[in-house]
């Protein structure tokens, strides 16, 4: 009994006011503006050289700073200097290594050089690695450690060009296992040789080994040499892979025994960004704190036209960042997250499809707007189309559905028409997406709007809008393809196609049923083969799959990053590339090679249109859809603008902590009466029983 009292007493102490019994947070410092967010999957590696997932990026992007970033407010996406002083100076050289100047044709270029100058006076975050003694710990000292915060002494130093070069060397080091190493080998001069050279050396020795293509020019200037012309390289320089890394980090973390305590670069980054990782407990929470050493950066004063109306320019010119702390909490399920968001314990939220029509409704004109209950709570909505595409791929090596033959092409086209992605979007995505007309999403160079951008093989232009061709057209195509009303002449039964998918779980059955119905419209029997992710990958790799759906998230906002998914020499089966459908068309390949090294000119746009036309004609993909992101955020949360490129938004965000506290209190009044009622009821039931028992025991005594 005493224990129970103790627990109750403690409970009362820990939550003095009864209004927020359900508050999941214990620290309540009203003076700090803390942003509450969540992570659903524990980040596996927070090393900028190896991390390549969006979930990890949302942490890394706040901690590390590559030379460039995308403008927060401007669209289409634009590069701007971050830790660099200005955009890179690019020089071109011919095969004889002579600097090209004036007018010269692109095919003369053998090398390009990017010269990057960085800002002076930037400092790293405080970190024990910068103290000499900490890099030579005795095993006794290491034995005593449990976490990085156990180090009392922490230091810093100025950021220099050497640190950027060091990071590129790390990318090349086979022991680091950077996912882009193989890719960069094709471009950066001397990258492959360097990999070979340091293969058997210790990690720290890369500092003294030179990499011929990447050199330090001065304390604040360095140079990267690229084979040929590769205009997209500047976008890579805005990714975390090219963020600076101090050599001290390697020397510190490679000390024996630290890894066993999970003290490694994967878990405790060293960056120059606006935040540093204060607590990394992937089992429970991750805390980012404002970096006191952060260099002076200010809120942008220019943006899109609508940004001013939306109040996104209110903070123009103020020093960044605004938020003192970000607490990410492990939250695996969407339901608790959503409920907590509505209770005010999370500041922003996406919308799961299950709670969608609770939050959003479409007006008569088709615009999304918040429901009344949401508006009453002061919640705001932001929508934006992502730079990604989800498509259905046909394996072009397959004898039935693939290949260049006209029959197979017509079959694919018939399926393209029959698959009503408008319905898909409205059923499974609650209208959060737009049907794709080609390979490119909106906001990517070369994508055309309205009628010019229509896929005329699948759509008609009617009433100033896209209209899917009728199912009769698809049936006619089926007949032309040799499958009259879906009957396979070889078997005399319905044509059987195979659909490989990795989706399992609650929503999958409905989706699979939907796919089956779509194929049934033109008489095809679709067999669905759900597999786990590995088997699925195997099938794609050896080309034994037939139909599958896949998506692509852009690495950088350039058409090249989408068209290379269909480039012949990227074929999955033959060349282990990213062309999962193994599409091969020499005309397309030739156009691609031409397009990729061009700057964004009218001519490039024309080539892109030709490429779109080829793909629409050949139908290796059913262009699915481009998802639209809907984000909700509370009234106290300011300066949100969704960005699909680098996720550096955290430093721009602002939170009104006092207003939040008020609302939370208002929204979270605990309801006690049912508990009391249940207790009373229980006692009422018990009383007659006890009476009866007393009577009976009296009887037995008598």
């Amino acid at each position, binding site marked *: 009994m005493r224990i129970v009292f103790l627990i109750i007493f403690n*409970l009362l102490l820990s939550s003095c006011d009864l209004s927020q019994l*359900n508050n*999941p947070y214990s620290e309540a410092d009203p003076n700090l503006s803390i942003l509450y967010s969540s992570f659903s999957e524990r980040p596996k590696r927070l090393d900028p050289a190896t991390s390549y997932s969006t979930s990890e990026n949302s942490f890394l992007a706040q901690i590390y700073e590559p030379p460039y970033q995308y403008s927060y407010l401007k669209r289409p996406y634009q590069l701007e200097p971050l830790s660099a002083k200005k955009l890179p100076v690019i020089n071109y050289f011919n095969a004889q290594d002579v600097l090209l100047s004036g007018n010269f044709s692109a095919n003369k270029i053998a090398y390009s050089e990017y010269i990057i100058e960085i800002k002076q006076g930037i400092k790293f975050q405080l970190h024990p690695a910068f103290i000499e003694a900490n890099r030579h710990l005795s095993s006794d000292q290491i034995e005593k450690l449990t976490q990085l915060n156990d180090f009392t002494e922490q230091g810093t130093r100025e950021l220099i060009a050497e640190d950027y070069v060091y990071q590129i060397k790390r990318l090349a080091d086979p022991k680091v*296992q950077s996912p882009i190493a193989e890719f960069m080998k094709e471009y950066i001069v001397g990258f492959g040789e360097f990999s070979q050279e340091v293969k058997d050396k210790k990690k720290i020795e890369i500092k003294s080994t030179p990499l011929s293509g990447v050199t330090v020019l001065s304390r604040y200037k360095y140079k990267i040499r690229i084979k040929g012309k590769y205009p997209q390289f500047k976008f890579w320089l805005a990714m975390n892979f090219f963020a600076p890394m101090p050599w001290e980090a390697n020397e510190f973390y490679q000390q024996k025994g630290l890894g066993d305590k999970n003290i490694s670069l994967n878990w405790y980054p060293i960056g120059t960004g606006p935040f540093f990782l204060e607590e990394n407990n992937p089992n429970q929470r991750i805390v980012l704190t404002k970096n006191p050493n952060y260099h002076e950066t200010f809120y942008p004063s220019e943006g899109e036209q609508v940004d001013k109306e939306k109040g996104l320019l209110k903070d123009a010119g103020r020093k960044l960042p605004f938020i003192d702390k970000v607490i990410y909490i492990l939250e695996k*399920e969407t339901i608790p997250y959503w409920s907590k968001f509505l209770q005010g314990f999370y500041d922003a939220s996406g919308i799961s499809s299950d709670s969608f029509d609770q939050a959003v409704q479409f007006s008569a004109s088709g615009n999304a707007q918040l429901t009344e209950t949401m508006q009453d709570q002061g919640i705001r909505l932001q929508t934006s189309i992502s730079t990604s595409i989800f498509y259905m791929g046909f394996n072009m090596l397959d004898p039935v559905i693939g290949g260049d033959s006209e029959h197979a092409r017509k079959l694919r086209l018939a399926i393209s028409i029959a698959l009503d992605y408008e319905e898909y979007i409205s059923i499974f995505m609650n209208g959060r997406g737009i049907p794709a007309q080609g390979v490119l999403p909106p906001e990517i160079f070369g994508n055309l709007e309205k009628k010019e951008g229509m896929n005329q093989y699948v759509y008609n232009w009617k009433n100033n809008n896209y209209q899917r061709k009728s199912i009769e057209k698809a049936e006619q195509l089926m007949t032309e393809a040799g499958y009259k009303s879906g009957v396979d002449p070889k078997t005399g039964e319905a044509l059987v196609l195979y659909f490989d998918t990795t989706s399992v779980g609650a929503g999958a059955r409905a989706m699979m049923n939907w796919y089956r119905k779509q194929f049934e419209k033109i008489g095809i029997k679709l067999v669905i083969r759900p597999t786990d992710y590995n088997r699925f990958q195997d099938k794609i790799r050896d080309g034994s799959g037939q139909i599958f759906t896949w998506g692509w998230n852009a690495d950088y906002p350039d058409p090249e990053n989408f068209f290379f998914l269909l480039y012949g020499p990227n074929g999955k089966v033959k060349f282990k590339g990213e062309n999962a459908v193994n599409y091969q068309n020499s005309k397309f390949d030739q156009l691609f090679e031409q397009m990729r090294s061009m700057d964004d000119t009218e001519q490039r746009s024309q080539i892109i249109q030709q490429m779109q036309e080829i793909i629409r004609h050949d139908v290796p993909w059913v262009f699915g859809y481009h998802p639209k992101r809907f984000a909700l955020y509370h009234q106290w949360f300011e300066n949100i603008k969704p960005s699909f490129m680098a996720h550096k938004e955290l430093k721009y965000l602002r939170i009104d902590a006092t207003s939040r506290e008020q609302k939370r209190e208002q929204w979270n009044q605990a309801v006690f009466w049912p508990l009391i009622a249940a207790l009373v009821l229980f006692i009422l039931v018990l009383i007659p029983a006890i009476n009866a*028992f007393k009577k009976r025991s009296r009887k037995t005594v008598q």
Partner: protein
Amino acid sequence: MIKYILRRILYALPLLMGVNILSFILFFVVNSPDDMARMQLGQKHVTEQAVQNWKHQHGYDLPLLWNDRASSNKKMTETIFYQKSIGLFLLDFGVSDSGRNISEDIKQRMWPSLSIALPSLIVGLLVNISVALMMVLFRNSYLEFSSIVLCVILMSISSLFYIIGGQFFIGKLLKLVPISGYDTGFSAIKFLILPIVISVISGIGSGARWYRTLFLEEVEKDYVRTARAKGLTETQVLFKHVLKNAMIPILTGVVVVLPLLFMGSLIMESFFSIPGLGSYTIDAINSQDFAIVRAMVFLGSVLYIFGLILTDISYTIVDPRVRLS
């Protein structure tokens, strides 16, 4: 006694070996090291070289069970099986495929698991015993009949309904506790109340019924009749004699599960996002992190065997007639 324990521990070795081989085979039949590498490396730009590198770094580039190319005395040892098993027996679980030290993680996640499982067990035991005692006390009355019916009804409801319902009513509608999450120290209490209440309620049905039969068996024995004949009241009989004697099977039953409490509850933990060992296991299965799964299987069997030994010992303590041999 000590001799007995020593023998049991020796006997545990082949058991653990069997468990180890079984879990190894089960997971490698479906998962080749290549699969594991790809799983960990992510989706974009994964080359054959990267896969090889990963395998080399994590020690998966050896043959599975038998190394033909190694020199004679290394044919067994230069294999994935040997390399990955030897650490387990020393309770050094090594590094997970995603790069974290497993022992550290287990040490950390054990506490949340325990802080749900232990109170659930104790409170559940108290509640079940008192309900069962009440049923015996009020036997042959409407109260007993309705309690039995209630128990069967409670038993027939899937635990998922309890969790979903509890979260919905207590967390969302009444706002009495946070819906999910966890915190360290005393502030964890508010997160733990709901899961504990739910697991106690969902266990009442079967638990109370089981204890009731135990008590009833005891009530019908001769010594109880004698006690009653001595003039003891019904309550005295129940508490002094029946409860005391029935505690022996109850307690020994509890001892078996005690060590397994460390493993946590799979469903509870993932519903309430409590960072315990149960959700750790589920995550590992879902992300196919073989190193963690094997470590957890091994730990589970060690604890199970430990529980068996504890039970035997507890028998000797409560009942002096039992001798271990």
